């Protein structure tokens, strides 16, 4: 009907308004269910724990030789481990490795997946075919079995290395989804229109394509964090990864296989503390993703 060309200044202010509206929307969605606030709080808590947690404790955690597997008490809310170290301290100091791996994995997964998907969907032609074959290959390789095999070849000495490997194994799904999104945007004439206006490719990708996919990508990133946490904790739990630092998977492994946590209640707190941490992290991320889902996917909105 009416095409109103917006002058630059108005555009900027409109964008600012949009942003304000967006944050207002976020706040509204969060406020509607207190559980979502809890989710954000939990995620923030873990972020703080990962960044500042290890600083709260000395490099060598204190041990109490007379309190091996001590039951929970005021001074040890989750009891102590096999050599009398406070379990809570272990969970807190161990979070950095776990979360860093998760983050590294998520960043690599998302960056690689998005780049491949965008490029393939944008370029089409033989590059698309080639990249999609690569994606198929990535999806066809069984991840956990390969990790098991790799763990004997590769020493995952740093969380970043671990994240790199997990990320390299996991980008296929996102690449495929981003590509189909790109193609559908393309079908809707998005790209052609931008081309017609003489906008450069980087602008089209950076300003037009990415923003419309950003919510999807952000949600995937969060999900990738949990995926990576489980994968690495699971590998440590199986005991196939060499470990030097303390982390949750190592705690699980030691609790079950040398503490007998599943056989006797004595070491149960030692097992439950990292499990609780995992559950809490999951819960936090699930709640945040739920909120994001509603913010970005209006269909789920019921108003």
């Amino acid at each position, binding site marked *: 009907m009416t095409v109103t060309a917006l002058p630059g200044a108005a555009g900027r202010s409109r964008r600012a308004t949009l942003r304000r509206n967006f944050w207002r929307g976020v706040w509204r969605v969060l406020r509607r269910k207190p559980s979502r606030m809890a989710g954000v709080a939990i995620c923030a808590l873990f972020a703080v724990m990962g960044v500042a947690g290890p600083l709260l404790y000395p490099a060598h955690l204190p041990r109490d030789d007379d309190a091996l597997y001590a039951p929970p008490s005021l001074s040890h809310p989750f009891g102590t481990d096999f050599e009398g170290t406070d379990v809570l301290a272990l969970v807190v100091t161990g979070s950095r490795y776990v979360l860093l791996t998760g983050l590294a994995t998520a960043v690599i997964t998302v960056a690689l997946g998005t780049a491949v998907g965008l490029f393939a969907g944008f370029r089409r032609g033989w590059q698309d075919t080639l990249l999609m074959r690569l994606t*198929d290959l990535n999806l066809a390789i*069984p991840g*956990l*079995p390969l990790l*098991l095999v790799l763990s004997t*070849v590769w020493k995952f000495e740093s969380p970043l290395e671990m994240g790199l490997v997990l990320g390299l194994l996991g980008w296929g799904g996102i690449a495929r989804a981003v590509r189909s999104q790109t193609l559908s945007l393309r079908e809707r004439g998005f790209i052609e229109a931008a081309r017609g206006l003489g906008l450069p490719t980087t602008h089209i990708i950076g300003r037009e394509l990415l923003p419309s996919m950003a919510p999807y990508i952000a949600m995937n990133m969060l999900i990738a964090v949990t995926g990576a946490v489980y994968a690495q904790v699971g590998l440590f739990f*199986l005991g*196939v990864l060499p470990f030097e630092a303390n982390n949750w998977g190592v705690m699980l492994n030691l609790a079950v296989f040398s503490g007998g946590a599943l056989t006797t209640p004595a070491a149960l707190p030692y097992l439950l503390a990292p499990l609780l941490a995992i559950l809490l992290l999951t819960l936090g*991320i699930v709640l945040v993703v739920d909120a994001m889902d509603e913010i970005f996917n209006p*269909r789920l909105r019921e108003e």
Partner: protein
Amino acid sequence: MTRATANRAGALARRVAGHVARGLVMIWLVATISFVIIREIPGDPVLAMYESMLQKGMSPDQAERATAVLYGFLPKGSLWEQYTGYMGSLLHFDLGRSLSTPGVEVTSLIGSAASWTVLPVLAGTLLSFLLGVTMGVYAAVRRSGRLGDLLALSGSLLHGVPVYVIGLLLTAIFATLWPILPSGGPVDVEFTPGLNAGYLGSLVRHAVLPVVTYTLASYGGWILAMKSNVVTVLGDDFILAAELRGLRRGIVFRYLARNAILPLFTILALSIGMLFGGSIFIEEIFNYPGLGLLLVNSISSRDYALMGGTFLVITIGIVVANIVADLLYSVIDPRVRSGGTA
């Protein structure tokens, strides 16, 4: 019309052929990659076996007697020679001889493990699918109600909780604290294998915990997927249109369910393909002798042939499932079937 049918059949055949060709290339690539990685794995399997025997209290002489001969089972020749030999025998479906079970063909080891994997994982997959789909519909329809919310949250959480956590907790409860179910093994050896009540009963009793674990672990994914599909379809105009045309609730529900479940069938096909990988964690926790456990054991015993073979079979499962899922989708979804003009 007949020509159109013929064309369609021809197109399908070409599609299948294309998929199969691509699948073969994929399998070859994976075989090559896994071959290289596996040969790069450090570790002396015979030495490890010897030292483990000492650890278990065997005398050094006994341990030496038991392991010396195994050196003959290690791969010989340059990497390239091994590779060409490996590929050559692959063409004859020969995966080589096992080192950890010396004197036994890898194919027969994989065969017997696969039969143990298929039972619980397939049962678990189908159970969780049925359960998840039903609950997913409910959670979507009642998404503003408390129960619907709870269901969705349970789905998210179960989907999020790693399978090993579920397995460990179930073992702790049902095999240790309240031992009503066996904690390990596939079937009680006291029963003669065959179609007799004792054997089948024991089979089922032993499968309960792995199946329940698997069901719980994958149920969350199904409920979430189904819920989101149902919500999407609920928002689709044709559902409202159907209601406004006064269609019976049952019919509207069928419209809803069919449209929502359709995309899940391809995922189901994929997860059935994945089942050849078994669930490493479940099999490890419940000592269930499937392919996952076989792979773990082959890695720790550096059984190169078995490792490569198991890995390959798992991959083939996934590749075949991908092909099936793709074809299945084009068969069950009319929009894809005719090339979709919409």
